[in-house]
């Protein structure tokens, strides 16, 4: 491979933000036809490095070479013209427009007099969508798609031009296994065509499955490059965080209390129907299913955000009806929502205020919010979750994606709710912090809290849950205990292959 000239090469890139040195002289190169993983903890500088390459940030120092030609990327336009395509970590779509218009944003095919060539546009887009095996067409409005499908639209962009290099910044964070498989096929295709690929992810199994080499960043500095075939998880982890991780599951049998929360025949229109399940104090209940299976909607109903059309919710044996999250929180139910940007965070607000937001009423000294109380909560969760932020005053929007997610988790953990529901809690979180979050969830359960974990990552559900509920098409198909669950059984259940609903 080394005989090729690199598709792209970065040399000595430095980038500082007020209060942070995000990149400290990073060098990095990708060969044509190679899938090169970029790894590092949350906030290590991966996205920033790629944004420099994509022309979104201007580096303070350093040089960029495309096929060994030095280039200055003044903006995304230049990057695109150089054949560098960028799939962003955060969705970057115009929701009111059609899928096709989003895929070809900035380069709609034209006819005379500046008219859009709709026929070509739709034909080309549909061809790409077909490769991606998605079930929506080019004319669909993006706002109507689920997050996973929106992510697929982002990915489709990479296939519009003959790119020299494609950057995928955590593309699988909101995909489920089915779409992941498609994505990996796409990446394999691109690779076969000689495109250089940068792949950012926190999921080890993906890294080992599709990448050729791995470069590691730590605190904005380059740590080295490994051949994927010649390394293992432990080595990578050590380079990333400086220590090994103990990933073994705490096998002690859970100490179960009485039923904390029970749903009986709960339905909400066609979103989900006739759901019956319960979670006990001291238990972690997992929900597993494909995207759109209705898990999020159940969580939202338990949190007072949807009015059930049938069925009842029992909290410690008493039937409750929740008009709003205010009431749910008052009764000790909390939800870590699935979309951090839309539902989880006020991006313009600082880190501390975001964490304390749901309990700000209780953190007062006289009529005023107590600075001290707030800062102590912030400090506690910053340390627990290893949140990397220049200070509590930093607006959350300036944090790296993973650190933003940690803020959302911290916000709800600090409430110490009796029933904690977490929806895709570790989306975009690095391996170290992920296991820390898992430990935290387990620990909460051990202290007698009831925890519901919704996840589309099978290892995650398997790892943290005492029991697992499998959903398909708005219905609960089966319930597994930790002892009886197998990967195959789960997959069958969520694909609707088992007839017996629990």
């Amino acid at each position, binding site marked *: 491979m080394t005989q090729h000239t690199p598709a792209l090469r970065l040399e000595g890139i430095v980038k500082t933000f007020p209060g942070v040195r995000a990149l400290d002289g990073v060098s990095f190169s990708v060969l044509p036809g190679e899938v090169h993983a970029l790894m590092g903890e949350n906030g290590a500088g991966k996205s920033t490095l790629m944004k420099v390459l994509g022309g979104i940030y201007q580096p303070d120092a350093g040089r960029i070479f495309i096929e060994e030609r030095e280039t200055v990327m003044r903006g995304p336009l230049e990057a695109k013209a150089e054949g560098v395509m960028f799939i962003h970590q955060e969705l970057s779509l115009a929701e009111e427009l059609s899928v096709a218009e989003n895929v070809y944003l900035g380069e709609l095919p034209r006819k005379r007099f500046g008219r859009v060539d709709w026929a070509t546009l739709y034909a080309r887009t549909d061809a790409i969508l077909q490769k991606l095996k998605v079930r929506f067409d080019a004319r669909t409005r993006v706002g109507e798609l689920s997050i996973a499908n929106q992510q697929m639209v982002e990915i489709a962009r990479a296939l519009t031009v003959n790119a020299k290099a494609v950057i995928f910044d955590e593309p699988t964070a909101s995909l489920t296994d089915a779409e992941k498989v498609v994505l990996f096929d796409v990446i394999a295709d691109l690779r076969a065509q000689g495109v250089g690929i940068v792949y950012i992810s926190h999921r080890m199994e993906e890294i080992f499955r599709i990448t050729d080499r791995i470069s590691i960043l730590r605190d904005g500095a380059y740590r080295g490059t490994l051949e994927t075939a010649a390394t293992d998880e432990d080595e990578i982890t050590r380079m990333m965080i400086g220590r090994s991780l103990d990933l073994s599951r705490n096998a002690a049998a859970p100490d179960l209390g009485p039923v904390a929360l029970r749903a009986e025949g709960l339905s909400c229109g066609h979103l989900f129907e006739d759901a019956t399940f319960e979670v006990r104090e001291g238990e972690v209940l997992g929900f597993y299913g494909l995207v759109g299976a209705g898990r999020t909607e159940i969580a939202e109903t338990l949190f007072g955000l949807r009015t059930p059309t049938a069925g009842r919710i029992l909290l410690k044996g008493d039937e409750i009806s929740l008009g709003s*999250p*205010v009431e749910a929180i008052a009764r000790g139910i909390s939800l870590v929502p699935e979309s951090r940007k839309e539902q989880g*965070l*006020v991006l313009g607000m600082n880190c501390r205020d975001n964490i304390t937001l749901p309990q*700000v009423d209780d953190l007062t000294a006289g*009529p005023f919010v107590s600075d001290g109380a707030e800062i102590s909560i912030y400090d506690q969760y910053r340390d627990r979750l290893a949140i990397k932020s220049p200070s509590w005053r930093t607006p959350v929007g300036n944090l790296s994606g993973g650190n933003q997610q940690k803020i959302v988790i911290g*916000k709800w953990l600090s409430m110490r709710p009796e029933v904690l529901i977490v929806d895709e809690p570790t989306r975009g979180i690095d391996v170290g912090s992920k296991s820390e979050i898992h430990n935290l969830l387990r620990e909460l359960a051990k202290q007698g809290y009831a925890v519901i974990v919704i996840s589309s990552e099978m290892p995650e559900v398997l790892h943290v849950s005492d029991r697992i509920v499998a959903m398909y098409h708005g219905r609960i198909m089966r319930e597994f205990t930790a002892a009886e669950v197998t990967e195959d059984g789960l997959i069958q259940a969520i694909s609707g292959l088992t007839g017996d609903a629990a």
Partner: protein
Amino acid sequence: MADTALKSTAMKSVGGLLARQGILVAFVVFMVGFALWNPRFIDIDNVFGVIRSSAILGVMALGVTFVVIGGNLDLSVGSMLSFSAIVVLDLHENPAFGPALAIPAMYAMTLALGALNGFLIGYLRLNSLIVTLGMLSAIHGLTLTYSGGQNMDIANQSETWFGVFGRGSALGIPVPVLIFAGLAALLGMILAKTPFGRKVYAVGGNGTAATFSGIPRARVVFATYLISAFCVATAGLIQASRTMGAQNTVGQGLELEVLAAVILGGASLLGGSGTIFKTVIGVLILGFIQNGLLLAGLEFYVQFVVTWIIIILAVWLDIATKRGKLWSPIA
């Protein structure tokens, strides 16, 4: 060695101040400019005079700051001001009320209008621009119906203590200035320090996330409109007391001026950002520009043009210092 370190931290904090308070810097620059042009500009009487006449706009702007930070607009404040001034004057003249009852009654009626705004926008989730624009028109109709289209005047101006709110002074400071300052301090504290203030920022910054955080969004928005109405009522009181009479149109057009002051202070129309202190600066900039240009003896239309240029320069300076670049990075 220590000296240079001290200097550099001093430089940094000056730079930091510049970045955070670009609008304040703009304010100082204009003040100095005007003072050089006409020294009477910084005459203490003139300064108090300007603050006093800015007080009406200023008090309204304090309330609108809450609404804007909460992510909405309030275009009904001008017509609401006319309403409250007319009502308080009419009730003042009504022997059954007199000043002591007229004032609370007027507050109650104005707050009712604010509550209507708040209900429609907070609880029914209707678009604030159109609702308050509709209210602008409807309240104007209400005022005309109430007054029969007539001006309201206090007949015996020498026999009432009503004038104290607009004309009085305490410790040598005009009462409107005291009210403005007091209210600014109170509301500033509420916004910056209390849980309610925090919720206003959250609701304006990201309403969905606020709801997910258990913040009663509708109630918070409702409250911002009540605060806005309270401020309008106070401004109406000052206005009525100052002129001891009012036309049905006395507040016409003020809504945009108020909004200009709030935005000039740096609040974002999208919600979630802004402070009372900055709004006060915005109000003072507008007040002193008007006064300075008047003192400079310019024709009113030249004043228009100069005001235009100054507003844009002020906001430009503000954001340019924040992003550390003069020109916008948009391609």
